[in-house]
């Protein structure tokens, strides 16, 4: 095992590397937050994309008049709109929402009161577009407005595209933060290793002169860096897991359609849980690189 491999260098008593876990811990903590953000956003984007892309909503305002007459006229408008939609190339399906479905949509805000059923609710038509046939949405919108009084086309693709664009930007920013943190950790380990080598210069020289290859000396620094970084990574992760779990529990309680998936998917949990190991591996490779680079100056 890497943890109990013997070392010829007195690295365990080395003051220069003692701070490493306390530096890696916040690094892993911040990386875990950023990485979790990436996975949560990615899940949200995929869900929005899946749910909304390729769909339209036609809203037809309730026709004026007495309740019965209004409902009848609105129903006729809906049928006209459906006929128009079905005759438009690129429309895969057009389906009017029932009264019960409309009430269910409003229930989270207005409750399940019978009053809802008496209100002049607008009609909604859920339209699915064909993926391979483009639809001229402006022309369709104009035609609907001319043919069906009170009809309007809600093209949420533009809204969604902007939202997805913003989310993707945040996602890349988070990836950048993770890389930046990784780079900062690497640089710290690199200079800590160089300092350690300066402190143990005489021991290293003896090992070198009795025929130790660079890899033999490098392994001892790399093992130490791995152990310390893993220790720091576990501390950082231990601080992070309750926060991520709390976010998951908190958003689940909201039960809102938009935030329901603000929980970390299993692959995100796996990535976050592997962060200490990743940090330790980065530290190990960096330490090895620092040793090889420094020893390359010797004969």
């Amino acid at each position, binding site marked *: 095992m890497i943890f109990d491999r013997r070392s*010829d260098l*007195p690295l365990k*008593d080395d003051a220069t590397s003692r701070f490493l876990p306390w530096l890696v811990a916040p690094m892993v903590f911040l990386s875990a937050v950023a990485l979790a953000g990436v996975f949560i956003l990615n899940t949200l984007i995929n869900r929005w994309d899946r749910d909304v892309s390729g769909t339209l909503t036609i809203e037809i305002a309730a026709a004026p008049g007495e309740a019965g007459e209004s409902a009848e006229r609105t129903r006729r408008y809906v049928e006209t709109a459906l006929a128009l939609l079905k005759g438009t190339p690129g429309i895969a399906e057009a389906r009017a929402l029932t009264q019960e479905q409309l009430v269910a949509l409003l229930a989270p805000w207005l409750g399940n009161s019978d009053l809802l059923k008496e209100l002049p609710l607008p009609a909604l038509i859920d339209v699915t577009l064909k993926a391979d046939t483009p639809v001229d949405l402006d022309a369709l919108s104009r035609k609907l407005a001319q043919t069906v009084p009170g009809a309007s086309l809600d093209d949420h693709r533009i809204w969604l595209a902007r939202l997805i664009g913003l989310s993707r930007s945040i996602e890349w920013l988070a990836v950048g933060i993770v890389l930046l943190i990784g780079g900062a950790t690497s640089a710290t380990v690199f200079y800590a290793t160089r300092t350690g080598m300066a402190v143990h210069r*005489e*021991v290293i*020289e*003896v*090992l*070198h*002169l*009795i*025929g*130790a*290859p*660079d890899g*033999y000396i490098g392994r001892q620094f790399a093992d130490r860096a791995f152990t310390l970084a893993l220790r720091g990574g576990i501390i950082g992760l231990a601080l992070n897991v309750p926060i991520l779990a709390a976010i998951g529990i908190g958003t689940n309680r909201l039960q809102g359609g938009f935030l329901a998936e603000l929980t970390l998917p299993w692959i995100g949990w796996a990535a976050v849980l592997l962060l200490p190991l990743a940090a330790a591996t980065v530290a190990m490779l960096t330490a090895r690189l620092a040793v090889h680079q420094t020893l*390359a100056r010797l*004969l």
Partner: protein
Amino acid sequence: MRREAADRANVVQFDGVGVRYGPGPEILQDISFALQAASFHFLTGPSGAGKSSLMRLMYLAQRPTRGRIVLFGCDVAQAKRYELPALRRRVGVVFQDFRLLDHLSALDNVALPLRVAGASEEEIQKYVPDLLNWVGLAEHIHSKPPTLSGGQKQRVAIARAVIGRPDLLLADEPTGNVDDHIAMRLMYLLDELNKLGTTVIVATHNEHLVSRLHHPRLRLENGRLRAG
């Protein structure tokens, strides 16, 4: 096989080697000599004559400013850097200032060349205590260098240099801190090793030792090699 190959060639060969530190004069000038396998030489000369610099060249701690060094048939200047550790493992060195690792026990210090060469713990436990016993340090096997006397440290350093049965043994003043009795005992150890095929070079000021052992000498004066 390796030892047979070493037998066929010179173990060490210097051709017109010179060493200069910075812009100053050459510390070593036009050094040329060849040492056959299983030979034993003393390297003598006054302080500042360049003995330690010559030893450093032989244990590959530095490059010459000019000239050619061939070790075990390998031109050091032509060798790839990754090939040098294997050459160094064929050379045992007793440093003048011992260079023991203070945080390791006598046993671990002596075991270093074996560990570096990839020996198992069983081999280490089998050979190292025996050798420490032979050099009279059986009771100090677990002692760390700071608790040992100068003579004891020197014996640990010698044990570390010979434990790997090197093809070439370089000893810089190996008997400087021990009494005559121990000095002769240590020299007999080097002699025994020499009889087994190791080429030995001992840099020393001890004329008494040189005269008793009747080995040829390389004499350095003002950075030049004189006939012994």
